[in-house]
């Protein structure tokens, strides 16, 4: 199982809420972060980064939870995150997961999985045309998969099943691979892992 999430830093700074306050909006932090996460944010040198790193951990963990057959819900505060620098632990319902984040000036990218985190991921620039972004990202993922597993790219297909879970097919046969796709602003990221 694998879940990922990307935060385009510039795009996220252009917040869409009525007063453009973003994470500083009254009530925002309290609604989605646990007490201990709120402490991490309050004492952080860069609270913006801490907020969105934590958020990307929650979002990625949620994707793993849904992939594992969990029922959709919207209650980010019940997803508990801890991290030391770029490595994290996340508890979502009964699942205990591990995370790894990349933080740079352009984006925050987090990948979440089980214990070993034997996951291959990549971040790419997918441009600004929202109609093309998903196509570009999928193309990159399929190319990588075909090279990694020596499969014919034309026979690979990604399809979304119930609850938006992406699945991978070769001709009509479902492959034993977990994949996750994410995009935000002009960045996209994909991750994949062989299931045993």
């Amino acid at each position, binding site marked *: 199982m694998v879940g990922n999430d990307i935060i385009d830093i510039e795009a996220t700074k252009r917040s*869409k*809420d*009525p007063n453009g306050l973003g994470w500083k909006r009254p*009530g*925002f932090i309290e*609604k989605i972060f646990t007490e201990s996460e709120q402490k991490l944010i309050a004492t952080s040198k860069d609270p913006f980064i801490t907020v969105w790193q934590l958020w990307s951990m929650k*979002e990625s963990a949620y994707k793993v939870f849904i992939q594992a057959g969990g029922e*959709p819900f*919207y*209650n980010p505060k019940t997803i508990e995150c801890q991290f030391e620098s770029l490595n994290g632990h996340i508890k979502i319902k009964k699942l205990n997961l591990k995370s790894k984040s990349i933080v740079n000036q352009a984006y925050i990218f987090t990948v979440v999985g089980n214990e070993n985190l034997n996951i291959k991921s990549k971040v790419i620039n997918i441009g600004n045309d929202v109609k093309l972004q998903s196509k570009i990202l999928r193309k990159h993922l399929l190319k990588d998969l075909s090279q990694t597993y020596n499969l014919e790219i034309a026979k690979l297909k990604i399809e979304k099943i119930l609850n938006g879970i992406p699945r991978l097919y070769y001709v009509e046969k479902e492959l034993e691979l977990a994949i996750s796709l994410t995009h935000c602003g002009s960045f996209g990221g994909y991750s994949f892992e062989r299931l045993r």
Partner: protein
Amino acid sequence: MSDKDKMIEELKALIKPYIQDEEAFKNLHENTNFIEDLKINSANLVDIVLDIEDKYDIEIDNDSMDKMLSVKAALEIIEQKVSKK
């Protein structure tokens, strides 16, 4: 316009800034899902909850928010909280 249609229109005005699928937004109905259909970024769903709280002067606790994934669920929660005011 029925009360429900009026509420859907009010809700549409609130969520407009956050949607990323214009087509699904134009065709919005009760069973429209915020994230799957309207492609709303899940972090913005918190903004929608806060906007609803401000507009109707209600408080949406986390247990109610837990189910707020569709237009229908949002309408039910608003109705329930407004009636308790």
